């Protein structure tokens, strides 16, 4: 069986192409059923976001890739990439870990992959192979998030402002936010601060009507801009975005307010040009002024920090990928081991019965001793081959050689049979047999 991945992302196709081939969520199940009905396709999952559309499938052969590609349509075909086996698996791991995202480290993609898996499950398109791969990809993604700084640091200006407010004030519960002016980005940041627990949102504007309108829109309290000095004594965060050509908040005004507020820290966010807050205000103790350039610099630094963590994140993905592949190969080596043991036990059983039939008059204890001896011989003989096959984990030539040497190719003995037979034997046999389910469970 082959794991394949067919699709495209923001790296291969412009937004014009992506929007044409995006699959709306209500059509996902139907599309998955269509994929599953393709010849040779056993399992399928479709991840469709604004930045990518990717189909992960388990098929009988690589040839199924062509059919899967066709389902994406002629618009996608020139841009789409087909990946197989380890490459497809690596891509799944990297996508889930947000290493293939437009903003590296963004948190949404893992949720989107999980949602895609849930929809595939509902549509009956998700099978054991894809499920195992997804589980490991999720583990890798979680490790990447917790063990590296790839998801740390906001990268958009409004979220940088909110993050810095947290850094200064800790929890925003019970804090007061002052919105001066009506800039869009300022409204966005103010809304976010409000949803994160800010107690009150004061909206100041030159025109009382505008203040009232805006306050209604963002769920705040309208106040007059003339009260600004008093408002600065009250607010913990002030976001300024007026169209004024001169500074609205001066250093002197802030210095007076600072004394009145007993040096409680205040975060002033200036989101306009020309600037609304006199730059030297930042020199005051416990006053932190961030203008557009400052926010952009922090955002850029966060982006750089994320990029610097990519190497470490890729290492984690490779570790998890290798571990997953090793476990898969171990699983693959189980049938040979199971068939070998079943073969040996059936030979031993037949010989023991023949011997017991010829040795008339043996009591139950003596018969048991003969059976135990046969089992012990099997265990001793199979000990070295079992260890070697397990160590080889289905990668080397020993699996095939064993099958050829013992004439096991034609035998369709299932591991379950081997388990059942090993249970009949003495303790040592049972212990050896117990390895099989363990390997299968990996």
């Amino acid at each position: 069986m082959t794991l394949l991945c067919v699709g495209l992302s923001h790296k291969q196709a412009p937004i014009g192409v992506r929007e044409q081939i995006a699959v709306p969520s209500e059509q996902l199940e139907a599309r998955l059923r269509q994929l599953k009905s393709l010849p040779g396709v056993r399992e399928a999952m479709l991840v469709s976001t604004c930045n990518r559309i990717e189909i992960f499938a388990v098929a009988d052969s690589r040839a199924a890739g062509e059919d899967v590609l066709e389902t994406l349509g002629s618009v996608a075909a020139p841009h789409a990439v087909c990946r197989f086996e380890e490459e497809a698996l690596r891509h799944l791991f990297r996508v889930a870990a947000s290493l293939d995202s437009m903003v590296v480290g963004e948190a949404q993609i893992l949720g989107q992959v999980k949602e895609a898996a849930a929809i595939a499950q509902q549509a009956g398109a998700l099978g054991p192979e894809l499920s195992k791969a997804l589980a490991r990809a999720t583990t890798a993604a979680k490790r990447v998030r917790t063990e590296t700084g790839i998801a740390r640091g906001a990268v958009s200006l409004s979220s940088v402002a909110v993050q810095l407010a947290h850094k200064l004030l800790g929890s925003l519960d019970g804090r007061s936010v002052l919105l001066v002016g009506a800039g869009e980005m300022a409204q966005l940041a103010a809304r976010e601060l409000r949803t994160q627990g800010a107690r009150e949102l004061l909206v100041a504007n030159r025109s009382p009507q505008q203040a009232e309108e805006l306050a209604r829109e963002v769920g705040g309290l309208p106040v007059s801009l003339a009260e600004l000095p008093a408002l600065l004594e009250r607010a913990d965060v002030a976001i300024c975005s007026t169209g004024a050509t001169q500074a609205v908040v001066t250093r002197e005004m802030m210095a007076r307010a600072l004394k009145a507020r007993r040096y409680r820290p205040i975060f002033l966010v200036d989101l306009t040009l020309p600037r609304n807050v006199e730059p030297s205000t930042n020199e005051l103790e416990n006053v932190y002024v961030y203008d557009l350039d400052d926010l952009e610099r922090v955002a850029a630094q966060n982006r750089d920090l994320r990029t610097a963590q990519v190497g470490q994140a890729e290492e984690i993905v490779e570790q998890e990928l290798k571990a997953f592949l090793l476990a898969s190969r171990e699983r693959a080596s189980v049938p040979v081991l199971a068939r070998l043991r079943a073969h040996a036990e059936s030979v031993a059983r037949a010989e023991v019965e023949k011997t017991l039939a010829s040795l008339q008059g043996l009591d139950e204890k003596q018969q048991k001793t003969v059976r135990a001896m046969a089992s012990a011989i099997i265990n001793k003989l199979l000990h070295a081959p079992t260890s070697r096959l397990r160590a080889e984990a289905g990668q080397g030539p020993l699996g095939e050689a064993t099958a050829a040497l013992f004439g096991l190719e034609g035998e369709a003995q299932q591991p379950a049979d081997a388990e059942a037979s090993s249970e009949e034997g003495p303790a040592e046999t049972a212990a050896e047999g117990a390895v099989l389910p363990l390997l299968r469970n990996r």
Partner: protein
Amino acid sequence: MATILVHIALVAYTAGAAAFLTWLVRPAPGFARAGRLLLLVGVVVHFAAFGVSLGVAGAGLGVKAWKGGELFSLLAAVTVAGYLLLDFRYELSVAGAFVGPFTVAIMVPAHLVHSDARAIAPEVSHSIALFVHVGASAIGTAVLALSFGLSVLYLASERQMKEKRPGRLFARLPSLDLLDRAGYRLAVWGFVFLSLAIATGSLVSREATGSPFPLAPKQGFAILAWALFASLIQARLVAGWRGRRVAMLVVAGFVLLIGTYVGLLSAAPALQGTAA
């Protein structure tokens, strides 16, 4: 037995410090968890060592155990215990990266100090005041060491926030507000214990030398540190000082307090006699 336990504690502290420092470079939560656990193991074993030591010392309040080296050892144990409580309350993994190495740094000299040379003068070795003095000194210093650590973190974080250039540690540091509040609260508690230590210290000094405040570097530094912490608390309460100013005063106060310990080790303090 006690010595073996102290060695085990030192090994645990060192491993804990290493785990926390590794966490600074590679932020896997497992490293911070391991560091926390190792410090916890270290402090439990360390207090067990004190228990054994007091049991062996047996006599009276066991103050014979309070020799120069043991005082530093106790200081280390109380600092770690205080950090673990603080971490439990505020989740301050990053402070562990400072407390761990700090603990190791004061534990090692604790073992280098030759106990006999710093033995307690016989006339005060069974004094309740001495017992309280040593205990309050150790707790007060440990609490102020933690306050100092948080203040240093505050200053570093505040500088980055002001200069608008967050560094690598910035993301892992708690908010400035939390560092400020926790640092100040610890400074207040440290001040309370320091006051107690100075009051009982003067009683001990009078028992040993007849003078409650002999002119010695140790006493001088202690009084200066106490005055500085007192003015810091007053400035906060009356004028509302906070943030950078308070953090810098805490740092200065703790440096003065360290001077007390240097005085304890280097000079021939009036408290300590030559015979055990």
